[in-house]
């Protein structure tokens, strides 16, 4: 009984905020969200365009470099001398790997990742209305 009455007295003594405080808070958060959407939309759009452009250049470079590395010759061995490759598959795999332009391939994969990540963020933002929960 005493416990509940002290609780009642404390509840009576609560301070009350102005009615519009929650409205003001909501308005501030909405404005911040809109600003964040504008900034992040530009960031993700720019990164999408840049990564796509970079990817195109790297793939073109890859297409030019690949015949010079002997990669196609190794691949043609698969068709002509399949059973030898089966016997020396470790050596074959090592040679193929060494012939690959690793830097170009790594960069192109990285750019594909950036592109897909940016597109995913932009789509989720459209769906959820905020980058903070996208």
């Amino acid at each position: 009984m005493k416990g509940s009455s002290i609780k009642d007295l404390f509840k009576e003594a609560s301070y009350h905020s102005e009615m519009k405080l929650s409205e003001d808070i909501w308005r501030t958060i909405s404005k911040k969200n809109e600003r964040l959407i504008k900034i992040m939309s530009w960031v993700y759009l720019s990164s999408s365009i840049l990564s796509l452009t970079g990817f195109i250049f790297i793939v073109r470079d890859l297409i030019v470099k690949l015949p010079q590395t002997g990669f196609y010759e190794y691949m043609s061995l698969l068709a002509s001398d399949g059973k030898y490759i089966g016997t020396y598959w470790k050596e074959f795999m090592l040679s193929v790997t060494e012939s690959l332009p690793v830097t170009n391939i790594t960069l192109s994969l990285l750019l594909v990742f950036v592109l897909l990540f940016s597109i995913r963020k932009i789509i989720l933002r459209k769906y959820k209305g905020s980058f903070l929960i996208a």
Partner: protein
Amino acid sequence: MDERDEDLILGYLNGNHEDLKTLIDRYTPQIYNFVVRFVGPNSAPDVTQDVFIKVWRNLKKFDISKAHFKTWIFTIARNTTTDYLRKKKSIVFSDLDNEEDIFEDTVEDEVSLPDEQLEKLEDKNYLNDLLSKLPMPYQSVLVLYYQEDMTFKEIGEVLGKPLNTVKSQHRRALEKLRTLIES
């Protein structure tokens, strides 16, 4: 029917922004009532707003399965208030931590005030005046326990203190309140 906090959080995370507004409407009075006692009526609206901005920014990280939203938001309120007071070089919540940690399990949970003292507290301005004279950790415990209906365990989570420390602070706060009424 009122939706549960957890449902509102999930709704917001799925893109329903009105659910966040409902959470703000629900908790603004409680957070304001908590922070105004430490930062005063002039700064309380700004500090309350900062609390909700932090909630908005971090809601995605909040784990519904591990904590109650009410405990979480009051922890943010406590930290935001502490940061504000630290900037103003005022006292912080943890000032009495070391002193309180010496209390053990022997502390009683149920402590109250005599009837004649309770009658005096019916004047809410008088009660708020007395509360403002208490050290900050004591005020926090009393406000969270009596006004926000939190358990000692939840208060411990908000203030980052062990259960027994919270219990002892509650007991000491009431003793101090009693002394202030008598004086």
